[in-house]
């Protein structure tokens, strides 16, 4: 049984213009890549990736985009929210030479992963991209971890213009990686995939989720019927390669197909 926990917000961190992290003093026992469903009981229960997790705290990082996240941004330290989870699959924690590719607000779960990878003795390189400087998150957090870190924006605000896929390509020219991990916009991962023909990789997918317990079917991905709330959100190469809907369409709250 997946227990629901109603817990207080312990800390709120401003990360970027429209991005905040929320920290909870709660033992979630999650693995990197997993997510929670969060609600304030005022309409909406939404999935958020776990950006960090220790034995007594966990954190999510949220981009304000609509009704629910706007309401979440008005919450104060000490306010209650309710959380189900953790749900879903997690990243394989390797001990080799690994590359993490993040995009926009998709990057935070890679921070939790990077910490676990380092603990496991892996050599970690992180490339992080976003539209503009204002959307780029966790630069300092990654630097503090002591991983090899580079970032880039599409608008070129940091001197470099391009995407994290460009940075990934350069990094892969310089060194041989054992495993690549990506989280971010689906089209970023779609662009990255052709570069990874000879490499093991895992991608974190986001699809519209309702039940998060594998019964409503809203988050299944064609044609293999993988439920992203159970068998995902992290999928390994051998599954990603079978997906015909990857980068083509997803499903909205009604279950209708929406082209990217």
């Amino acid at each position, binding site marked *: 049984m997946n227990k629901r926990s109603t817990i207080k917000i312990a800390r709120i961190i401003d990360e970027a213009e429209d991005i905040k992290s929320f920290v909870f003093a709660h033992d979630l026992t999650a693995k990197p890549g997993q997510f929670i469903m969060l609600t304030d009981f005022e309409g909406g229960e939404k999935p958020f990736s776990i950006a960090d997790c220790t034995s007594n705290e966990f954190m999510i990082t949220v981009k304000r985009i609509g009704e629910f996240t706007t309401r979440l941004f008005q919450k104060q330290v000490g306010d209650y929210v309710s959380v189900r989870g953790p749900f879903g699959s997690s990243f394989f924690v390797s001990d080799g030479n690994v590359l993490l590719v993040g995009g926009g607000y998709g990057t935070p779960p890679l921070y939790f992963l990077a910490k676990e990878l380092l603990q496991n003795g892996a050599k970690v390189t992180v490339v992080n991209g976003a539209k503009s400087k204002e959307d780029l998150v966790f630069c300092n957090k990654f630097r503090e971890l002591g991983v090899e870190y580079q970032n880039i924006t599409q608008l070129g605000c940091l001197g470099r213009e391009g995407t994290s896929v460009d940075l990934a390509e350069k990094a892969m020219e310089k060194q041989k990686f054992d495993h690549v991990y990506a989280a971010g916009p689906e089209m970023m991962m779609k662009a990255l995939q052709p570069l990874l023909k000879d490499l093991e990789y895992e991608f974190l997918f986001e699809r519209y989720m309702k039940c998060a317990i594998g019964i409503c*079917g809203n988050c299944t991905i064609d044609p293999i019927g993988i439920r992203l709330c*159970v068998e995902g959100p992290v999928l390994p190469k051998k599954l990603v390669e079978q997906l015909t809907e990857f980068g083509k369409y997803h499903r909205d709250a*009604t279950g*209708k*197909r929406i082209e990217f």
Partner: protein
Amino acid sequence: MHKRLKTKFLGVELESPLVLPAGVMGMSFSGMDIARINGAGIITSKSLTLQPRTGHKGPVIAEFEGGILNCMGLCNPGISNGLLEVNEFKKRSRTPVIVSVFATNTEDFLMLAKEVNNSRGDFLELNLSCPNVFDEFGIPLAASKDEVFKIVKAVKESSRLPVIAKLSPNVYNIVEIALAAQKAGADALCLINTVGPGMAIDAKMVKPVLFNKFGGLSGPCIKPIALKLIYQTHSAVDIPILGMGGVTYGIDAVEMLMAGATTIGVGTAVYYRGIEVFEKINNEIIEFLDENGYETVEDILKLEKLKL
């Protein structure tokens, strides 16, 4: 698949008596297909409405010891998109599909039935019993024998496919309603839909857990109610019953066959035991056959049913 599990539903051969019920995984062709691959003998689509529906705001699921409450609110991509998924599924497989539809009046049900006539679906199921849209639509149609009679009769006259009426457990006299459906020409009955609805409260927040406040109960806690209603109905009607409600293990399915069902839905158990639940229950049924001297599932169906 196992020969010993083969059975028939309304003349159609089934590889297994297990059914994926409406609203569970049946949103997309691949969701239907994964249930088939894992051993379901019939697949039911999500209940489809004329227009797409986003359903209720979350939380839409509240879990408790005996089962779950849900108030999905009939989210579905609408009849035309939904039938595209059904047709795509049928291109890949011969497993029969029940197309479930939901409406609140005869005209809309007739429009839905017309669309389903032109699809590759095998059966038409009328969801007369969703308990989660009370605020919008009021008391489920399945609460009234006259409404059930009127709608089933009208649909039956225009449907190319056999018609299954899905009834509500939340009524005083199931037999009277089942008989009305049979008299109107229903080819089969499906029972039960979710029970209640019920409620869950978050004591720290002092709020209902479900945003819709109330939700239908499913899972192990409703099995005794399902058995009782299937048993009572079976004793009164001549048409087959697609039984469901809390079936989680092989023994639950066997009990439900003994109560009078001919096929068995497995919904919420997909959560408890994974999508592999169909294969697991199939195997457990075979174990039961072995241990109790039955050759096939048909032997259980042929048993003289329980007597009062």
